[in-house]
C-alpha cells in the first residue's frame, strides 16, 4: 500500500527527522534508568542514604544470585506469573462470556444490573478474608482474588461495548435474514474487538494487583510473599529485588498484549 518508489527528498528528510526523534527519546529514557541506578548505588556507597532501609543495586544483585542458586527465585516468579496468568485468562474469558450471555438475554441483563453496579463499587480486597476462609490458604484463593478483581469490570465494559454497536449494522444483517448467533459472530464480536483489547490491557494490571494482594494475605510463595516476608525480617534487599522483578514481569506481559493488539487490529490504521 505504501509507495516505495519515488521518495522525494522532502519525504526522506521528514522520515529521517522522525527516526532521529524516536532514537533520542529512547536514548533519554535509557539514560534516566541508568542514571537512576548509578545515583542509587553512589548515594548508598557514600552513605547519603542508608542502604539497610533503601537497599542498593549491588546488594540487590547479590540477593538475586543467592535466590538464583537456591533455586527459590524461579519458584516465586513462577507461582506469581502462573497465578496472574490464570487469574487474567479466566477473568477476561469469563467476563466476556458472561457479557455475551447478558447481551443475548436483555432480561438477564436488566436483572443483573444493580448487582453488577454494587459488585463493581465494592473494593474486592474486602472479600479477601472471606475467600481465604472458603478456599483455604493457598493458590486457589489468590487466583480467585485476581479473577474477582478483573471479571466484574470486564463484564460491565464488554456489555457496554456490545450494546453500543451501531444499530444500523445490526439492521443490515437482519435485512439479510441473520440469526441472533450470526449477528453475534459477524458484527457484535468483531465490532467490539478494540474494546476487548483495551479490557485485556486493563486486566493485565488488575490481575497483578489481585495476585499481589492475595499473596500479601495468604501465600507461602510468590513475589508478593517475598515482599511481605522481606519487610517482616527487615531485609529490604529482598523487597526491592522482588519489586524490580515484578516491574519487569508486568512490563513484559503488557508488551505481549500490545503486540497482540497490533496483530489483530490491522484494519484500524
Amino acid at each position: 500500500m505504501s509507495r516505495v518508489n519515488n521518495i522525494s527528498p522532502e519525504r526522506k528528510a521528514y522520515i529521517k527527522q522522525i527516526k532521529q526523534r524516536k532514537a533520542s527519546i529512547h536514548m533519554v529514557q535509557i539514560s534516566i534508568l541508568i542514571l537512576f541506578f548509578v545515583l542509587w548505588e553512589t548515594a548508598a556507597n557514600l552513605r547519603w542514604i542508608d542502604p539497610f532501609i533503601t537497599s542498593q543495586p549491588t546488594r540487590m544483585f547479590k540477593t538475586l544470585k543467592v535466590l538464583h542458586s537456591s533455586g527459590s527465585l524461579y519458584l516465586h516468579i513462577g507461582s506469581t506469573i502462573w497465578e496472574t496468568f490464570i487469574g487474567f485468562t479466566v477473568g477476561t474469558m469469563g467476563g466476556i462470556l458472561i457479557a455475551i450471555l447478558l447481551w443475548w438475554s436483555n432480561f438477564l441483563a436488566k436483572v443483573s444490573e444493580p448487582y453488577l453496579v454494587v459488585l463493581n463499587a465494592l473494593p474486592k480486597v474486602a472479600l479477601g478474608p472471606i475467600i481465604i476462609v472458603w478456599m483455604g490458604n493457598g493458590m486457589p484463593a489468590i487466583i480467585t482474588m485476581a479473577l474477582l478483581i478483573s471479571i466484574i469490570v470486564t463484564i460491565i465494559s464488554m456489555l457496554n461495548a456490545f450494546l453500543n454497536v451501531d444499530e444500523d449494522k445490526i439492521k443490515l444483517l437482519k435485512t439479510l435474514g441473520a440469526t441472533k448467533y450470526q449477528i453475534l459472530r459477524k458484527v457484535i464480536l468483531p465490532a467490539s474487538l478494540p474494546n476487548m483489547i483495551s479490557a485485556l490491557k486493563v486486566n493485565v494490571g488488575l490481575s497483578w494487583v489481585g495476585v499481589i494482594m492475595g499473596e500479601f494475605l495468604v501465600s507461602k510463595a510468590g513475589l508478593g510473599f517475598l515482599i511481605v516476608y522481606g519487610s517482616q525480617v527487615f531485609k529490604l534487599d529482598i523487597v526491592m529485588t522482588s519489586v524490580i522483578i515484578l516491574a519487569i514481569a508486568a512490563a513484559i506481559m503488557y508488551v505481549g498484549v500490545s503486540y497482540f493488539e497490533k496483530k489483530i487490529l490491522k484494519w484500524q490504521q
Partner: protein
Amino acid sequence: MTDIKLAVESVGMKFQTTEGETEAISDVSFSVQAGEFVSIVGPSGCGKSTILNIISNLTQPTTGEIKVNGKVGYMLQRDHLFEWRTILKNCLIGPEIQGQDLKAARENVKRLLKTYGLEEFMHHYPGQLSGGMRQRAALIRTLAINPDILLLDEAFSALDYQTRLAVVDEVWSILRKENKTALIVTHDIAEAISISDRIVVLSHRPAVVKNIYTIEFTHPGLTPLENREDEKFRYYFNAIWEELDVHVTSE
C-alpha cells in the same frame, strides 16, 4: 398482463412504546411492476422508512399485508461497510449469512467489482476508499445476494452534492443493467423525478397515499442527470412540491 413484483396492500402501522402510541402509517397501498423504479417522497417522519422495514420483514404491520414476488435487497442510508473486513469480504456478507455457495458468490462479486471499477480495491479496507466508492461497494454488497427488488432508503444522502449526482447516475445504470426493480425513498424531489418511473407522494403522519405520479419525459430513455434538463422536469417538480405542502416555519 403486467408482472407485479411488489404490492403494498392497505398497510397500517401503530408503534407502541412506554410513552404512548404512534400511528405512523394510516393506510397505504401501491404496487411496483417488474423492472420499474418507484420513489416514495413525503414529509419527514411520515413513515417512509417504516414502509421499507415492513417490506423487508424487519417490522410486522399492524394492518394490511405485503406481497413480494422475488428476493428483496435493502440498501441503507450510510454504507455500513464493516471496517474489519476487506471490500471483497464485505460484499460477501450476504451470501455468507444466507448460506449460499460462497465460491459462486465470490465469482459473482468479483465480476461486479470488476464491472463497476472496484477491482483494484477488492482487498482494501473500507477506510481506504472515498465516499462514492464506498457507496458503490455497498450497492455491490446488496446485489451479491441476487435480489430482484432493491429497497433504497436515502441511500445517497450521506454524500456531498457533486458525488451524489454522479453516484445516482451510476447506481441507476447499474440497476438498469442488472435488470432490477427498485423502490427508492428520498427527501430530494429532484432526485426522485430524475430516476423514477413513478413517484408515490405520502401525506403527513399518519401516512396515506396523496398521489401517484407517472413520470414521462419528452425525451425518454436518458440518464438521471440528463433527465434534469428535460422540459417537463420543472412541471413535475412544482406539482410534487405543491403536493408535499412543505411549511418551512412549522417543520
